[in-house]
């Protein structure tokens, strides 16, 4: 059941809220930056994220923007933590507000005695605990452009939080060096303006200090960027897509990466063109990808079924957002799973893979390409808005963990020894041999109509049954090939959580909270969602009394899929659902588990 935002959330043991005093040491801090689109809130988040990383902390950033270019409320947050968190902190210590609207919107997210740092040249903040500096006026007067107010505010925050001065400056230098000497000088000037203003106010100096972390050599990126990199090293060489939030960055990154590797990126005239270009490229022998979100996925559905029947391996990234229809383009949801599992008319096999972290996007993107090509079917790489666009720290991407295998591609020698080459040859493994068009001495016929082994259109009933069994059999025969789950928490815990995608972040945080409350809980992070991974889910479900399936949709889509495939576990499954467009905060997961375990009121 859905839980309201956690007003009664338990605090972690290292909570500092109760006895805050000057120079409180924080090991987990959250800062929200709010303003109008174009105020540069994302730049401040980026600067803070860079600083915290240099201090060895884990960083997680999220953004809340409207679907327009400029204007409208936009906020973003950055969390820095000694513990590896990939979730939004339930309450923030500091809000940097460029307008009053930001305060009203952020209020429910703020700690009881949070501080609002505001731009006093624009408005007078209405909040119990405020500190104002005229950032825009100062920047306008001394740098020449009020827009530098965001860097000035970063300077003030650096004083408030006791940042190391040299490191604070180094972040600016690294961020702006590519913009040219003038931009760098102006930003350095803005930094000094903000620092000076704060240093002149005793209430601002070293209000907090941030504990150093031990997590060095981490990289900070979004799931979309990690997936794009995974596609490059996984041998992806063709991409066609249509711009759609929150998937577009994958296309933009690949436009940068692919040309160095004989790769081609095309922006199609629509999603119909895009999916069919991907099909054409896969037919030609390229590893081909598209990325989209709900509305585009609906348009691509016919093509995905075509690829499955024609037995052409393609990869489709679905960056889920609030649906149906145009829904909320910039907001978070995980509501495409049921559609994907039963995708399209007719029956055909497909795999749905779900990375649970930014770095997992990289590895599963590469895996998806191997699986699609080997099994010659559509592989869906299922992301969600939070995973796609929120930046998180993670270990450096390891090329040695990526393999590129083409087991069904015939070598010229293998081909020379064949008597016949049949594109849809019936084999015990369900896998047919492959050579691309252009291979001397071989021609092929490929079709989305039902066909015989040669690729000739056929309505022969015996053939139809065999071909259905060939295609659908892949769902069984590929099981050992599919990415396995990840397990977290004590093995002997009797409370289980099941989730996928970006919910892994808040679930892992909730496990820690529950442990501190004396409720041991463990987590099954599903990385293959379809076919439903019965072989690993069954022992997990056997080992717990209750399993909470955590997902961002109204109907409990993954829980329903599990029930459909594994009805014996019906009674053990409970759902924790959220469908308001925002990611789970840890208390929203802790509360229903606690209630279920202690039997307290609902």
């Amino acid at each position, binding site marked *: 059941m859905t839980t309201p935002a956690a007003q009664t959330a338990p605090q972690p043991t290292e909570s500092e809220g109760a006895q805050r005093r000057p120079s409180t040491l924080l090991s987990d801090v959250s800062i929200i930056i709010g303003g109008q689109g174009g105020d540069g809130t994302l730049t401040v988040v980026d600067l803070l994220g860079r600083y915290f990383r240099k201090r060895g902390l884990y960083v997680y950033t999220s953004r809340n923007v409207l679907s327009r270019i400029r204007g409208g409320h936009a906020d973003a947050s950055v969390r820095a933590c000694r513990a590896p968190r990939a979730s939004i902190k339930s309450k923030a210590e500091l809000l940097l507000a460029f307008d009053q609207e930001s305060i009203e919107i952020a209020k429910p997210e703020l700690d009881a005695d949070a501080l609002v740092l505001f731009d006093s040249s624009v408005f007078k903040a209405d909040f119990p605990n405020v500190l104002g500096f005229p950032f825009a006026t100062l920047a306008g007067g001394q740098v020449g452009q009020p827009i530098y107010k965001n860097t000035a505010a970063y300077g003030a925050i650096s004083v408030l939080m006791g940042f190391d001065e040299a490191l604070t400056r180094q972040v600016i230098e690294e961020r702006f060096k590519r913009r040219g000497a003038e931009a760098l000088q102006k930003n350095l000037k803005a930094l000094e303006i903000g620092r000076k203003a704060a240093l002149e106010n005793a209430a601002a100096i070293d209000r907090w200090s941030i504990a150093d972390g031990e997590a060095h050599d981490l990289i900070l990126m979004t799931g979309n960027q990690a997936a794009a990199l995974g596609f490059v090293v996984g041998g992806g060489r063709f991409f066609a897509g249509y711009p759609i939030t929150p998937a577009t960055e994958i296309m933009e990154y690949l436009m940068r990466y692919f040309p160095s590797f004989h790769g081609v990126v095309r922006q199609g005239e629509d999603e119909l063109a895009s999916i069919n270009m991907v099909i054409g490229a896969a037919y030609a022998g390229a590893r081909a990808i598209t990325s989209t979100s709900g509305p585009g996925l609906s348009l691509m559905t016919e093509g995905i079924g075509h690829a499955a029947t024609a037995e052409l391996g393609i990869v489709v990234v679905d960056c889920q957002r609030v649906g149906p229809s145009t829904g909320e383009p910039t907001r978070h949801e995980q509501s495409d799973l049921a559609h994907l599992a039963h995708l399209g008319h007719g029956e055909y096999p497909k795999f749905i893979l779900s990375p649970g972290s930014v770095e997992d996007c990289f590895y599963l993107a590469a895996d998806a390409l191997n699986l699609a090509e080997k099994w010659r079917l559509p592989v869906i790489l299922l992301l969600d808005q939070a995973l796609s666009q929120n930046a998180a720290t993670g270990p450096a991407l390891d090329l040695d963990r990526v393999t590129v295998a083409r087991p069904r591609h015939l070598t010229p020698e293998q081909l020379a020894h064949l008597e016949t080459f049949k594109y849809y040859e019936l084999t015990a493994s369900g896998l047919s041999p492959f050579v691309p068009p252009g*291979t001397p001495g*071989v021609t092929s016929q490929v079709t989305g109509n039902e066909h015989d082994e040669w690729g000739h259109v056929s309505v022969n009933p015996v053939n139809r049954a065999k071909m259905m069994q060939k295609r659908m059999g892949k769902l069984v025969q590929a099981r050992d090939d599919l990415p396995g789950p990840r397990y977290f928490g004590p093995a002997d815990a009797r409370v289980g959580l099941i989730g996928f995608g970006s919910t892994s972040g808040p679930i892992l945080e909730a496990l820690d909270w529950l442990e501190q409350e004396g409720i041991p809980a463990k987590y099954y992070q599903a990385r293959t969602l379809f076919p439903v991974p019965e072989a690993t889910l069954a022992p997990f479900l056997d080992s717990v009394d209750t399993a909470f399936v955590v997902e961002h949709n109204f109907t409990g889509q993954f829980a329903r899929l599990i029930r459909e495939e594994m009805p014996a576990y019906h009674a053990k499954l409970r759902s924790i659902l959220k469908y308001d467009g925002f990611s789970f905060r840890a208390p929203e997961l802790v509360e229903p588990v606690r209630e279920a375990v202690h039997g307290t009121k609902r």
Partner: protein
Amino acid sequence: MVQSVKPTASTWCPGCGDFGVLAAAKKALVELKIPPHEAVLVGGIGCSGGIHNFLEINGLHALHGRLLAQAVAVKLANPKLTVIAAGGDGDGYAIGMGHFMHAFKKNVSILYLVMNNETYGLTKGQASPTSRVGYEGNVEQPFDAILTALSIPSGAYLARTFSGDPKTMTAVLSEAIQFNRDHRGYAFVEDLSPCVTYNDTFKEWREKVVNVEKLPGYDPTDRSAVFRLCLETMRDGKIPIGVMHRPPRVDGADANPLELKLLPDHVGPAEADIGIEANRVAYQKLLQSVA
């Protein structure tokens, strides 16, 4: 030598206009000495789209209306292939209209061959985008693909042929395919190909076709002149056929079709070595750049 797929016998009605196209396409491929394994025919959905089964060639049978998107990508993935997209007027001008327009914009060196019979033959004779007013209750204006193509600024080769004149058609298809093989860009050919079962226009069209190449003022490099000749021919109740645009050879980057712009070294995505070892240094550099 390995035995691979062989062409099947045609499923078309006896006397179908598409037989003329099949014969001309076979001849053109032989004349140009294109080995079967180097050519891909992307077929649409409809009677005409089955043509890939009847030729000794690689065949990719696309979704209804999507053959151009698939064909464009085949060429971009491997620019060494000769790629022909072939389908009907319903496939190309109704459900596939978006791709029809954008194909000129993309300018990839493939041939798009539309067999226009002014009806939906496979579903038994409904009005198509090119049907005349009155056919099966049609009250919409017929779509004219050649006038549309002439009005789009592009370097495409354009022609209209008639199945009743296979000799001219063979010459046009040969020229169009060679145009593609020289990487000069997109070629679009509409063939008037009567449906003898639901819209038998052979006799009528034979009387009405006028080859614009024989008209005074014809200049295949001047699209406005050809456009005018087409309009004048149609005003007289006739049907203009012939080479409608034969772009002059232009040197320089602007003249390059998409595959050469995207793949300056002529190695397509399908031909790239994607092994980790072959790319290790570049991959490491890329991954380090994002750290």
